[in-house]
């Protein structure tokens, strides 16, 4: 328009600092630009953003609500970070959460009366992990045995899982005491996770998510399996050359990924709902939001934790928008979607630089780029 042109050029991947700057700006710009859309409803973006932030982080109660949501998001995010590290595109965390919830509910409803009280919760957690893992391993097997694309298979299995839950709560597991609602019976008290007083944060789950983050970090960096996962993720051809078993690595990876999502499902039914409920109520999109958490955490298990808190806060803040301004809850999706888009776009800055130039010689070139604008990392010899 003004005789300017923008050029995008590849250059050497930038530092961690820049990577963090990009994440933070994606978050900020995302918040404000999504909020800007509410101008049409007569609210200033600033009001919206501050409402979200106070709703999410403004009080002890707000923080606790945020953490209650950050826990499942963290578990799912860690698992997805692991899967994505190994280039296995697990879009099926949603289904894996549901299966974990179903397995835990099965234990709570049918086995708990026959078990010692102390054994019930460990049993539920174990069963939830196992069920999520199995649901995750199926697409892994489909891919390594038959070459079925995992994006399709994991996605499809989400629907199967959701239908299974619907069948159970409308059918065989429908609670006699629930006055016709599609819920199972309430869990016995031995099947309910203990919480911090007056909150919905189950402290065992909080411990589990933090431990899970450090354990997976260790697994990824220090174990043979983690090493092989990273080789597959970075260069599958080199993995083949080194004779790394794609099947074995991928199966372990999906046991972890699916299992952690399953644990998130256990936490939801055992603490938040205390019965099995409809699929949409159990997970409310954690499986998909978990993808954003994993990306925002840069696929690093520890990085996932703050990312989970941020997105947990966004969900809570969104609830507040809904209650105080009467906005549809779906408007939260707007925020998460804009942030994900910005994040993906932001990644381009990591190994490209943008140059805006007027149509005249090289000297008038402005470079907006990593401060060290060294280029050519990808093309070296």
């Amino acid at each position: 328009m003004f005789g300017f042109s923008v050029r995008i050029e590849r250059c050497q991947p930038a530092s961690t600092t820049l990577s963090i700057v990009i994440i933070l700006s994606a978050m900020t710009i995302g918040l404000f630009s999504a909020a800007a859309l509410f101008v049409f409803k007569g609210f200033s973006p600033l009001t919206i953003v501050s409402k979200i932030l106070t709703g999410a982080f403004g009080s002890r109660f707000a923080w606790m609500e945020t953490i209650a949501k950050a826990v499942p998001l963290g578990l799912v995010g860690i698992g997805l970070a692991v899967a994505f590290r190994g280039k296995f595109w697990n879009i099926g965390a949603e289904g894996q959460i549901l299966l974990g919830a179903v397995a835990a509910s099965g234990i709570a409803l049918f086995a708990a009366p026959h078990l010692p009280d102390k054994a019930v919760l460990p049993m539920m957690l174990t069963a939830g992990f196992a069920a999520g893992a199995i649901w995750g391993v199926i697409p892994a097997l489909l891919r390594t045995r038959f070459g079925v694309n995992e994006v399709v298979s994991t996605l499809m299995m989400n629907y199967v899982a959701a239908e299974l839950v619907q069948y159970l709560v409308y059918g065989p597991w429908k609670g006699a005491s629930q006055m016709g609602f599609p819920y199972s019976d309430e869990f016995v008290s031995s099947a309910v996770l203990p919480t911090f007083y007056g909150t919905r944060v189950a402290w065992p789950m909080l411990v589990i998510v933090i431990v899970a983050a450090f354990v997976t970090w260790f697994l990824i960096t220090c174990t043979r399996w983690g090493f092989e996962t990273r080789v597959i993720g970075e260069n599958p051809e080199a993995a083949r050359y080194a004779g790394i078993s794609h099947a074995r690595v991928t199966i372990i990876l999906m046991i972890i990924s699916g299992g952690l999502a399953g644990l998130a499902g256990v936490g939801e039914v055992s603490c938040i709902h205390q019965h099995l409920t409809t699929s949409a109520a159990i997970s409310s999109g954690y499986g998909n939001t978990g993808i954003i958490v994993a990306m925002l955490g840069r696929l690093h298990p520890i990085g996932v934790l703050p990312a989970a808190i941020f997105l947990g806060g966004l969900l809570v803040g969104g609830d507040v928008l809904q209650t105080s301004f009467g906005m549809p809850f779906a408007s939260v999706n707007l925020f998460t979607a804009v942030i994900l888009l910005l994040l993906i776009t932001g990644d381009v800055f990591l190994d490209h630089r943008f140059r805006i130039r007027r149509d005249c010689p090289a000297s008038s070139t402005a470079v907006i780029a990593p401060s060290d604008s060294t280029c050519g990392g990808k093309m070296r010899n």
Partner: protein
Amino acid sequence: MNRHVFDSLEMTGIRKSFPGVIANDDISFSIHSGEVVGLLGENGAGKSTLMNILYGLIQPDEGEIRLNQSPVNFASPRDARRHGIGMVHQHFMLIPTHTVAENIALSLDDAPFFDPVSVINDRLDVCSRAYGIHVDPKAFVWQLSAGERQRIEIVKALLGNARLLLLDEPTSVMTPDEINEFIGVLRAMTAAGIGIVFITHKLEEILSVASRITVLRKGRLAGTVRPASKDTNRSGDTAVHDGKNMETSSGHDEVDKAALARLMVGRELEQIIPGKSPPEDDILFEVENLTVMDDRGRTAVKNVGFTIRRGEILGVAGVSGNGQRELIESLAGMRSPESGTARLADRVLPLDAGARAIFESGVAHIPEERMRFGTVANMSIQENIILKAGHRAPFSRRGIISFSAAANRTTEIVNEYRVAATSIVAPMKNLSGGNIQKVIVGRELADHPALVLAAHPTYGVDIGAAEGIRSHLRECRDAGGAVFLVSEELEELFELADRIAVMESGRIVGIVDPRTSSFGEVGMMMAGAHIPGRAISSGDKP
């Protein structure tokens, strides 16, 4: 094609440091129109860095670049291209699933939005008439040999109106014939006034085409010299243009190959006299009736059989694309054969069981495409060292990686092969091309393999390091191993191999003894000529 006038280019006082290493330290370099200037130096000397600076890929910390006497500053390769500078990188940047024309269209800054391919053909015509470079625009890149791909990279640069071409190791991957043809093209280009910077590790080659040679040593300028004028017709090409050339070069010392090598390494190269111990009599490795398909499902290796004795190097000569690659990949466990068996010391190799099973049987594999297979660019040098043995002691115990064991092994290899690296945890991609190759060779030979499958093991490494790698291969042999060596350099095969098998169209067409054979004979066999008395059965049995 005359949009740019190129007269001369000078770089002065160029300095560039990367964390922990000064890649270029106060380097001056110049080139005039119609001149071929060689750029030489050991691996990691800073050649690619200097050319990347000139091409705008890297910004120098200090220094000045003057094009036709006026200062310039290239902020990007696009800038450089607009000033008539073109570069051919050593690692290909072509898209294999596209045609040649499509690849060229992609690279042109001024290609039309719709149907860009149509303008290419005309320009290709012009180009092939002017310089004698012929490419088939409709061919798919995956169908082409490495040398042909190199040619396309050059055409790309020429169609972008380059008047100064930077060629980073263009001949490493070419066959001798392709090199000859390529040199012809170089001459045509210089005759048209194009300036060419030519990086290579092959000294004879550079001595025969360059009018001046700039030598770098450990990031510094070791000197600029002139090849000893042994023939006059070479300088005939450049004399057309320059009085000027003569002027600039007359101040430089004249050198021959030995002097050039001395200048590069800064010391006398020790001449290694290979003492060949004769192979033992028992057969260590035996392949029978091996048939292998290529990626497109055509039979690439046809019923091949051969033996290698204990303490023997079997060389394989052949024009690339005649099944060598598929043969070596199937022996390495990366490509299941259709039929056939391989036995190593009485044990049948599990060719269908994947590369790890083969590795566990004591087989090392130096792969042909080092960037694609051999290394993981984003992982550290030490993690690349344990790429293949990471699953077993001492590099992992009970599933936990031992980074100290990995570090020890890496330090050993880095010292032994003189890998120029700032740290063993630096990412692999920071290494220069030749140093990457040294890491691969070091890794593969470290565990005293019984059988070494080596594809172009000295590809892209400097003369000193190439000699080092060859002597390591000899050590493997002298320790009673078997070496299967695929190479495009006949010199290398004749120097190293105890016997040379010639592959043509997926078959071994003959096996010769290098002491009684000649380049000419092997060349004829490579081209498919039958040579009486060289039938496979007569030469094969020890």
